[in-house]
């Protein structure tokens, strides 16, 4: 089947199978920032924005995304670099595998929620699992980036 999505600001027609996940389709189109982790809606590394709001692309059928806009780190490259470098400079990143999803979540907090509170940050980041850097350092780094007192 053919779906039409707006991927990172560009209209795309994609030929997919009805049971393809959005994660697999995005990676096939070259959006390799979207990572495969648990593939069971638990770890958050496959997080992308659908119409501006986070979803887990591992558990989202690509067919369902037909007619919607999808944003990955590739589509917000400049701001993603700024967020990623800030987080790294704060010592809150180690292997980098979960960083794209953390960037997407931070981007959402900044651009959609606007003036997030520490509670908002905790709520959004609680779905981003990280196996090496720990959570407090990431939470603190994101809060500092967003100008939220911790």
């Amino acid at each position, binding site marked *: *089947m053919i779906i039409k999505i707006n991927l990172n600001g560009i209209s795309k027609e994609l030929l997919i*199978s*009805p*049971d393809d*996940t959005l994660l697999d389709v995005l990676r096939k189109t070259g959006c390799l920032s979207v990572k495969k982790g648990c*593939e*069971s*809606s*638990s770890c*958050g590394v496959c*997080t992308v924005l*659908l119409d501006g*709001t*986070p*979803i*887990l692309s*591992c*558990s*989202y*059928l690509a*067919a*369902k995304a*037909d007619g919607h806009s999808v944003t990955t780190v590739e589509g917000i490259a400049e701001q993603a670099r700024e967020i990623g470098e800030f987080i790294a400079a704060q010592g809150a990143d180690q292997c980098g595998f979960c960083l794209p999803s953390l960037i997407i*979540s931070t981007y*959402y907090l900044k651009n959609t929620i606007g003036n997030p509170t520490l509670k908002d940050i905790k*709520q*959004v*980041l*609680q*779905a*981003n*699992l990280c196996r090496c850097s720990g959570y407090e350092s990431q939470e603190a780094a994101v809060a500092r980036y967003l100008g939220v007192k911790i």
Partner: protein
Amino acid sequence: MMRIKEYLKPENIDKAYTVLKESPNNEIIAGGLFIRLTSKDINTAVDLSECGLRFINEHKDRVEVGAMTSYLDIIQSDCFETPLLKTVKDALSEIIGIAFQNMATVGGTIYPAYPFSDLITVLMPLNCWVKLYKKDPVRLSEFIEKKQDNREILEKIIILKGSGKNAFRSFRKTSQDFSVLNLSVAVEHGDCKIAVGARPSVAQYAKSAMQFISGGKVNESIIEKTAEIACQEISFFSDIKASQQYRKHICNVLLKDALREVFV
């Protein structure tokens, strides 16, 4: 992983219903969170996204919530700011994270009667009704108790407004996990309802405990006795998350805590 031959987004519920009834291998797709956790061959997946079932409508005496409404829609809705409904919002806010909440839907949780569901447990003691397409509304508790997979479509739930108090409690090992046990209490005009879920089976009423505590004056000893009765009558089971005994103990502690919140 589900294997799907065809994918359809009907523009209305009537068309979706017709396609669903055409073959036993046609299935409704709501949020889709279970696509990777279910092994099933589906002929036509019927996506309800375009059927106009994503809404929260507030009326004078009730709030109606469409089947495709996400947890995040409820969390962000002003209609869920009354004391009784705020508890629903707070319960959903605890579930995993925002991306998950943005995908999980009311219908996708209630229709399959997922046993671990926090949503079913928090709604059950409220005056909540389930409306299936082409059927009369039934109470949520009745829908859950008599659940049969007759391949219907959940259209909306209807929550009648009330003036009572309620409390929800859940225990999970990490914020990413399903509840090891959850329970909810609501009291209005002395009538108390207690639902216990994730036992690990789906929520059920603690009917004897409800009868014991309803109507009379409630003090600490009544609360303790109520929790004891509830733990005796509710069926708990062991699974990978917790043993039967552990769940029973947790239930006793959480229920007393919830009862104190609504009665003291």
